[in-house]
């Protein structure tokens, strides 16, 4: 009986909220996309519009806007840093944040789209998306935009022109930075090989292409002999890099485009007793990579700034929803840096690294 009363109260409140929203959106259409319902319709009167908040209880005041973020996973600390950055921005604006990703068994675009579609039913103010597939995510972005939900992307870009803003590493610039450092380290000539995650994710593709294009444009005497992919599996990267070391006797350097790629690469050169023979440049961080940079196994690595990706994208979303501020540029670089033995322990670099 108690439950049924709760339910009917909830239904009543919902109806009231919907009516209220209707009236309000009609009046304040120019302002912001309105926010009719909250993500967690629990037992209390959670279904409040921002305007209702003032009239009801002050405990609800933090729930004025709702940002729904969709990452690619949680198996790396990288995603945790993204979430921390988002949370910091949302705290500044008193926004509610949800952070979702497909579980490790469903690391694909379809699982992600399902999560987003489910979230759209909860009427978020804005979406933050780091998609698996730039093309496949586009219809979902368009669908959300049509519903009046502002869409921002972080980390991975999309092929949709409907997004309000993107905050991520300019991966081509990062790849080019790796190429520049590699060229310098091997004396602007010789053979290099690349190991990357896959051939479809935007980030890894750009990290690879930035490197390849820099070499083609600036280093006629450097030859990229092979590019293989590890499907984000350190063990596969280990096998791939071992075969590079055995197959190309004159190999001067290997560039690894991700954490798992780099970890396998480091293990390969240690197993083959070739530390010092071949210049290694990695991407991202983690305890194994930091250790390898400190002890000289790996020359250095490019790191992105996941915290800033999360922070900047969530901040932009809050500004847009609350104050109608549209970012000046659609694509924004959240920054990257090349860390080596020499700068790894400086505060500015340590802030970007994770164990």
């Amino acid at each position: 009986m108690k439950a049924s009363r709760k339910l009917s109260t909830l239904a009543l409140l919902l109806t009231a909220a919907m009516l209220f929203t209707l009236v309000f959106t009609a009046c304040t259409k120019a302002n912001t996309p309105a926010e009719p319902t909250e993500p967690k319709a629990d037992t209390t009167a959670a279904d409040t519009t921002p305007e209702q908040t003032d009239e009801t209880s002050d405990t609800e005041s933090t729930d004025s806007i709702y940002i729904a973020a969709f990452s690619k996973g949680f198996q790396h600390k990288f995603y945790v840093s993204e979430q921390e950055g988002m949370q910091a921005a949302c705290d500044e604006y008193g926004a509610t944040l949800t952070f979702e990703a497909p579980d490790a068994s469903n690391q694909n675009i379809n699982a992600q789209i399902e999560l987003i579609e489910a979230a759209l039913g909860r009427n978020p103010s804005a979406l933050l998306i780091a998609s698996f597939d730039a093309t496949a995510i586009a219809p979902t972005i368009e669908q959300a935009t049509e519903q009046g939900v502002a869409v921002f992307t972080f980390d991975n870009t999309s092929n949709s022109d409907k997004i309000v803003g993107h905050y991520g590493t300019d991966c081509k610039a990062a790849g080019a930075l790796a190429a520049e450092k590699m060229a310098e380290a091997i004396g602007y000539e010789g053979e290099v090989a690349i190991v990357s995650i896959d051939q479809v994710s935007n980030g890894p593709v750009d990290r690879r292409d930035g490197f390849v294009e820099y070499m083609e444009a600036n280093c006629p005497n450097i030859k990229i002999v092979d590019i293989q992919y590890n499907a984000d599996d350190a063990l596969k990267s280990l096998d791939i890099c071992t075969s590079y070391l055995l197959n190309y006797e004159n190999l001067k350097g290997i560039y690894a485009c991700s954490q798992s790629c780099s970890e396998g690469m480091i293990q390969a050169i240690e197993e083959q007793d070739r530390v010092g023979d071949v210049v290694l440049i990695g991407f991202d961080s983690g305890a194994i990579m930091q250790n390898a940079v400190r002890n000289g196994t790996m020359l250095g690595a490019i790191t992105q700034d996941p915290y800033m990706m999360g922070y900047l994208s969530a901040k932009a979303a809050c500004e847009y929803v609350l104050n109608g501020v549209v970012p000046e540029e659609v694509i924004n670089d959240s920054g990257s840096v090349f860390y080596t033995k020499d700068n790894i322990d400086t505060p500015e670099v340590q802030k970007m690294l994770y164990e």
Partner: protein
Amino acid sequence: MESKKTHSSIQANSKKELMRKLFAVLTLAAMIAFFSLASKNFLTFKNVVTILQSCSITGLLALGMTFTIVAGGYDLSMGTVLSATGVILANAIVNWGFSVPVAILFTIVVGAAFGLANGLLISKMKLQPFIATLGIMMVAKGLAVIISKATVIYIDGYGGFSQLAGGSVLESLIGLKIPNSILIFLVFAVIGSLILKKSIFGRYIFAIGSNEEASRMSGLNTDNWMTLVYVTAGIFSALGGIMMTSRLDSAQPAIGSGYEMDAIAAVVLGGTPLGGGEGSIWGTVLGVLVMGVLLNGLRMLSVKQEWQTIITGVIIILAVYVDQRRRTKKD
């Protein structure tokens, strides 16, 4: 008269098995010949070691998988139980203060427990192996992420643990730098083969695999034996997890998903058909080698990855088709 019949059918079986083994050996030999001609770096000591080393982890899974397939099922949870046990092992060493041998034993017990869960779901609760092991696969995957707190657990040479897979006992004995992981795989292949071929347990596995109902009618406690089959697979998953963790000197919660499919492919390539009642560990070893040689050879030829995947798929289909056709003809 009945015993005569089974005797002759066992003889026919072993003859068929010999033929199938021969076929797998020929496939392997043809591949090695091709890649040796195509790449001068293929048939070198170091590269052969590399192939065997990369075979040893999925190889351990394939050995365990052979038991389940001969018994008429399969274990889809092997890949993620590998990740979960690897993560548990690394945690036990780094965070829980276990000594390395105790941590290894503990990990094997955990692997057996996953197997026990699979086994009970299949034998007592009568779930199909597909559903039961799919469920446990997901449970293990989630647990790996929870226990690792979604990060790579770095062992950093603690207690010489990386020497387990990466060190070389053979180097000090015979001067050849063959990593222990290869040796460990071969030792377990011998043990697995003895169990499957020579033990009562092995004989019951074949009996249950060819006709579970008949085995039950003849008084066999099929439920218990079936459970033991999956416990065995769980232990092999844990062994894979231990070797993976040792080789990378770290546990990676993301590694392992999909390895069960490589294991199934290797078992089937080795002439153990899905459906049960037939098969051998040595066939599986050959199947694992075929997969390893193929992957490494294509890499050494710098074949683009998308083509590597397609070629591997086509070869699995071709090999199993030819094997199957030859078998039905004989029958």
